[in-house]
C-alpha cells in the first residue's frame, strides 16, 4: 500500500508534453511535424502515441510508470529512425520534475499494422507531490 496523501502525476499527459517539446527542438528530417498524442489520429502520417500501462507504488513518494509507445511514420526507415530518437529522448528525460529514472527499450517493428509502426516500452520512476 502506498502512502496516504500523495498526488501522482498524469504521466501520459506529461510524456506527451515532454516529447512534443523535445521533438520540436530536433533538426532531423524524419522528426519534423511529428504529432505526439495519447490517441492515434487519422490523417497524420508521423505520430507518436503514448499509453499509460500502469505501474506500482514504491511505498514512499515514488511510483513506477510503464508507458507503451507507438511510433508511426511515412515509411519503414523513418519509423525506425524516429523510434530510435524517441527512445533516446525518453532515456534522457529524468529531470526530477517528476521523472527520476527512465528506461526505454529498443523498438520492434509491428507486422500487419496499418502503416509503418514501431513499438517500445518505457518504465519510469516518478515522484508524487504531497496534498
Amino acid at each position, binding site marked *: 500500500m502506498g502512502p496516504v496523501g500523495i498526488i501522482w502525476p498524469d504521466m501520459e499527459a506529461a510524456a506527451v508534453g515532454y516529447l512534443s517539446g523535445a521533438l520540436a527542438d530536433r533538426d532531423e528530417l524524419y522528426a519534423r511535424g511529428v504529432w505526439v498524442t495519447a490517441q492515434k489520429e487519422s490523417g497524420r502520417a508521423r505520430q507518436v502515441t503514448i*499509453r499509460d*500501462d*500502469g505501474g*506500482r507504488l514504491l511505498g514512499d513518494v515514488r511510483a513506477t510508470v*510503464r508507458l*507503451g509507445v*507507438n511510433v508511426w511514420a511515412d515509411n519503414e526507415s523513418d519509423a525506425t529512425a524516429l523510434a530510435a530518437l524517441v527512445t533516446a529522448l525518453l532515456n534522457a528525460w529524468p529531470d526530477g520534475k517528476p521523472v527520476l529514472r527512465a528506461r526505454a527499450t529498443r523498438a*520492434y517493428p*509491428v*507486422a*500487419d*499494422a496499418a502503416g509503418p*509502426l514501431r*513499438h517500445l*516500452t518505457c518504465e519510469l520512476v516518478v515522484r508524487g507531490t504531497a496534498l
Partner: protein
Amino acid sequence: MASVRVDPVKTDRKGVEEMLMTDPAIKKAVRAEADRIANRARELAPYVTGAYRDSIDVVEVVTSDMRMNRQIARVVARAPHAGRVEALHGTLSRAIGR
C-alpha cells in the same frame, strides 16, 4: 573507550546463486507470480477468435543477467499477431499491474 572490530561482510555469491537456482520455495513463488500475471493477461486480452488469449503461457527459464544464474519465469504470448496486440493494447504490460 571500548571499540568493536567489524570485519567486512563477504557475500557467498556461489551460495546465493545455488539458492536462486535450486530452492523450491523460490521456484514456487516465481511461478505463482507469473501465473497471476498470465491469468490477468488472459482477462485483459482482446477477444476475436481467442487465438491470442489461448497463446498466453508461462515459461520457466534460467537467466544469467545481473551476472548470476537464477531461475525466472516469463509470461509470453505465442500467437503470430502477439506483437501487434501488445503495441495496440499493452495487454502483457498492463497485466503486470502492481
